[in-house]
């Protein structure tokens, strides 16, 4: 892994200022460390060997006090800078990610991807915390402090300086060597770990089933055994992975011991002054400390770096070209024509739609039927501009849909997806989704026409808050609220994808009446496999399963 991904600088501008802050603060840390060690060494020597009193040492004592306060201030500023910029970077990456997702559109955002993206936008961005607020500043410190300390020690005493200069590089080398061996084992271990958590979750979720079949008690033994096995394998991994910390700790401690003993012996021989010896003794551990810390924070950063790389992969997905024409033909007089369209989703062998053609004349209500998997929903998504034809074209009057500005086009279309989504907020907010300036009366009218009269009977009416995904309502009620959206949108073209799937017969009947009203005087495409819906269509078009490629 590269220590710093350049893309981070590109996508999150705050990173640049932050890096500059880190360097400035790192220099301050190194300077204050050296100042403190020098002052302490001089004063101890003065008092011990030269018999100085506290009043003789007043000035250096005050200076030392200032250094102490300075170090406290720098420590405070380091934390503030780290968390502040980490928060800003998270926000920047998150908005970029979500914006780009919207630009890529639902065609790209297939069902399995959306779960992963949601995780990435929330937990993924949060995982960057470890990287930004811990690893990155430590990386800067790890470069600056040892260099500064080493050059100072070299100036004070060549032999001690050379000892440090020779042992210091061993730290990153061993870190890499031991780290790699441990990492391989860790990776395997993480595999078992998540497998175990999954197993536990699986049996907990299936507990009612296990109880029914009298197998729950037997599972107690299994869980004890498995967790015990897990503890044993984990311990064997930890023995190796803690080795890297042990090696680093031993290296730095031995280096300190080496320097201390060597300095002590040379002091004994009179080759060195006490003040220099104390300075070297105090500074030596400081040269190793940031590197050891870097090793500790490295693991915390790995997760963040992986998340960042996944975010970048999304950001670098090219957005399909979009049309720009805003001169839409009038849908009251122009037909919508699908001409020999083939759609293939990436990663699927079979095209979702092959050579499909369909005409929607102005004011016509067409029902699209066919077995599941034949591409009905893809055809609907095609008309809303969510997917683009790989072959063939969609014509609106004389214009090709691909050339049109999609926002302008979608203002002419009301679309009810197969599983319409209700959002947290009031019922009114949900109905206003496509017409946010609509008045309360207009919302009530739309609900009434959509057969959602039950809303008026709720104690707080259209201001009733809905839980996430519209919890608290039945499937039929949710569907009718989503339908009210399309009423309020009031567009010349209506596309309804399986508007009654998942409804019981009673609910279907109410929704059906509402739908009859909706399609009156509009061009409409109804995707369905339910016979009841066919009664409101002027024409039924049958779409057959894609022929299996030879």
């Amino acid at each position, binding site marked *: 892994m590269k220590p710093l991904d350049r893309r981070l600088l590109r996508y999150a501008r705050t990173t640049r200022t932050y890096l500059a802050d880190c360097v400035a603060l790192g220099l301050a840390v190194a300077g204050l460390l050296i100042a403190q060690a020098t002052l302490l060494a001089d*004063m101890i020597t003065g008092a*011990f060997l030269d018999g*100085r*009193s*506290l009043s003789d040492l007043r000035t250096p*004592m005050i200076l030392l006090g200032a*250094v102490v306060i300075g*170090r*406290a201030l720098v*420590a*405070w500023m*380091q*934390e503030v800078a780290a*968390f*502040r910029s980490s*928060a800003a970077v*998270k*926000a920047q990456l998150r908005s970029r990610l*979500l914006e780009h*997702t*919207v630009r890529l559109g*639902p065609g790209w955002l297939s069902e399995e991807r959306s779960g992963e993206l*949601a995780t990435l*936008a*929330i937990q993924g961005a949060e995982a960057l915390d470890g990287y930004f607020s811990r690893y990155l500043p430590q990386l800067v410190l790890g470069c600056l402090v040892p260099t500064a300390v080493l050059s100072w020690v070299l100036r004070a005493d060549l032999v001690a300086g050379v000892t440090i200069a020779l042992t210091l590089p061993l730290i990153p080398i061993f870190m890499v060597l031991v780290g790699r061996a441990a990492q391989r084992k860790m990776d395997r271990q993480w595999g078992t770990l998540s497998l175990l958590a*999954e197993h536990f979750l*699986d049996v907990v979720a299936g*507990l009612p*089933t296990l*109880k*029914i*079949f009298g197998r729950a008690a037997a*599972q107690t033994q299994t*869980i004890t055994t498995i967790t*015990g096995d897990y*503890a044993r394998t*984990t311990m064997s991994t*930890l023995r190796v992975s*803690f080795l890297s910390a*042990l090696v680093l700790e031993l290296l730095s*401690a031995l280096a300190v*011991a080496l320097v*201390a*003993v060597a300095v*002590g012996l040379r*002091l*004994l021989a*009179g080759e060195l002054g*006490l003040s220099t010896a104390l300075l070297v*003794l105090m500074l030596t551990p400081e040269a190793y400390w940031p590197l050891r810390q870097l090793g500790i924070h490295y693991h915390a950063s790995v997760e963040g770096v992986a998340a960042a790389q996944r975010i970048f992969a999304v950001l670098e997905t090219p957005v399909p070209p979009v049309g720009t024409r805003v001169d839409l033909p009038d849908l009251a007089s122009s037909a919508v024509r699908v001409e020999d369209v083939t759609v293939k989703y990436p990663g699927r062998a079979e095209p979702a739609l092959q050579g499909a053609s369909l005409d929607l004349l102005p004011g016509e209500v067409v029902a699209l039927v066919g077995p599941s998997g034949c591409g009905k929903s893809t055809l609907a998504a095609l008309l809303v501009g*969510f997917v683009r034809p790989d072959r063939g074209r969609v014509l609106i009057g004389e214009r090709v849909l691909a050339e049109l500005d999609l926002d302008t086009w979608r203002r002419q279309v*009301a679309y009810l997806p197969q599983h*319409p*989504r209700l959002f*947290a907020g009031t019922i009114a907010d949900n109905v206003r989704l*496509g017409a*946010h300036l609509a008045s309360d009366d207009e919302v009530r009218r739309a609900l009434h026409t959509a057969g959602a009269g039950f809303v008026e009977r709720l104690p707080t009416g259209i201001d009733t808050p809905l839980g*996430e995904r519209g919890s608290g309502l039945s499937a039929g009620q949710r569907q009718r609220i989503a339908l009210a959206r399309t009423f309020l949108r009031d567009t010349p073209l209506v596309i309804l994808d399986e508007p009654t799937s998942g409804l019981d*017969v009673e609910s279907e009947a109410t929704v059906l009446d509402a739908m009859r009203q909706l399609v009156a005087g509009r061009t409409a495409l109804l995707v369905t496999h339910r016979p*009841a819906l066919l009664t409101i269509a002027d024409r039924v078009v049958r779409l057959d399963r894609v022929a299996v490629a030879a």
Partner: protein
Amino acid sequence: MSSLLRVLVFARAVRGRLALAVLTGALALGAAVGLMATSAWLISRAAEHPPILTLMVAIAAVRALSIGRGVLRYAERLVGHGAALGVLRELRVAVWKRLEAIAPAGLPEYRSGDLLTRLVADVDAVADVLLRVMIPAAVAAVAGAGTVALVYWLLPSAAVTLLATMLFAAVAVPWLIARAGRRTEQRLVPLRGRLTALAVELIHGAPDLIAFGAARRRLSLLASLDGELAKAQACSARTTGLAAGLTALAAGLAGWAALALGISAVHSGAFSGVALAVVVLIPLAAFEGVTMLPPAVQHLQRGRRSVDRVSEVLDRVAPVREAAAPVALPSAPYTVRVVGLRAHWPGAGTPALNGVDLELRPGRRVAVVGSSGSGKTTLVSVLVRFLDPSAGQVTLNGTDITTLASDDVRCVIKLCAQDGHLFDTTIEENVRLARRSATPEAVRAVLAQVRLLEWVDSLPEGAQTPVGEHGARVSGGQRQRIALARALLADPPVLLLDEPAEHLDLATADVLTADLLAATAGRTTLFVTHRLAGLEAVDEVIVVHSGRVIQRGSHAALIAVAGPYRRMWDRERAAVDPV
């Protein structure tokens, strides 16, 4: 505090290893302090040019301590992790045993996968509290006390300032963080929650939002919320920063005070100059243990909620009271009789069932129909003893089932639930769960009965095909059929089928129902459903509404008269596919 005590109770079994971890950790820190002190003494003493022999012990000590520090730290981490893993095992088993007693009726979480996931993660988090909070805190306390004692032996006044600054950094600063942390957490949690909800909605609801031109407004709402969150986080950064600053200040002050006190003591002749460097340099090393405490406090805050949630589950009252001395199970054939049954779900005010009577005689099949929320599932839960009746009784050959061991009841009465869980293993293993001793041929026979055999044989791995997490790799209809095959393999004297065709599209549902009715012919069966197709095959139909029986009789008799059943039947028929 009670949460911490709770963790200690969980950790009882590993207290020896815990004590060892604390001891080695404290010794490791002590070695670091000792290394600094000995080195300082060695150098100071060398400055007096004594014979080299007087320094040999110190030289050896420096080398030993430098090695000891690393080795002891390694030992501490290993022992500590071992203890935490031991606690994890105890806790998993404890949670499992409790869940076994209360699931599913005593745990509303069973309806939400998210909450269940969290519970499992919480168990891991409790072990983490031990490792990241308890051990570091104890190590810092023991090592700190030792260091202060060492300094006291050298220069008592410096020991006082060291103790004061260490207490400030170890107690006052974490307290400050905890207090400020709670405050910012109160601001952050709702903000983060709203942000998460909005982001998830944006991604999952993208088709609706984009189609209705509402995506851009959502994005700007999200951006402003994210800005607010960043501001709140920057605010909390000031507190964590303050903590870091104060800890650094305390460490610096300890050194400064030791130096000032030491210089005057040396000057007045009360203190040997050789030890001056020792007293000054010890604080530099001693604060290493204290700096581990602020992160520990943050871990504790996160961990405490997990501990509370786990404790809450462990303390949950079981919805079913097991008979202290269960009576023996009556022998087959079995008649189940429900008399005046009333039942509540835990925490619910109104009864889900109120005065239901029912008789299920050997070999007879009874259907219970009604819209969702009418109490059908409650009835089934009482019959398999997931829930106790609040009035009335259920008898098995005349014996009240609450006087029987509930496992015995479930040996007789088995349920195939509407969301029967498939385990993340093969098809065969999932079916065989019902009867471990079943031969592959027996498994094939039940798979054939639920009309899955042809499909299973068409799979490259046949019955050894894994079904994936929660059966994700098979379709909804196949999932239900596998669950059904499992119930049939168990071959229970009484079979309960709770909405086996729920969550399926109508065509699939009706085919499955027909297969089901064929497979259960001649078996004592209670069939719960809201679809009426195929019910002409059962012996009796009971219509429930709001927890009460409103109609009963044979299918033919019920459709012959005007009434709720007839209305449901007409509506269902009107919707039947003419194709």
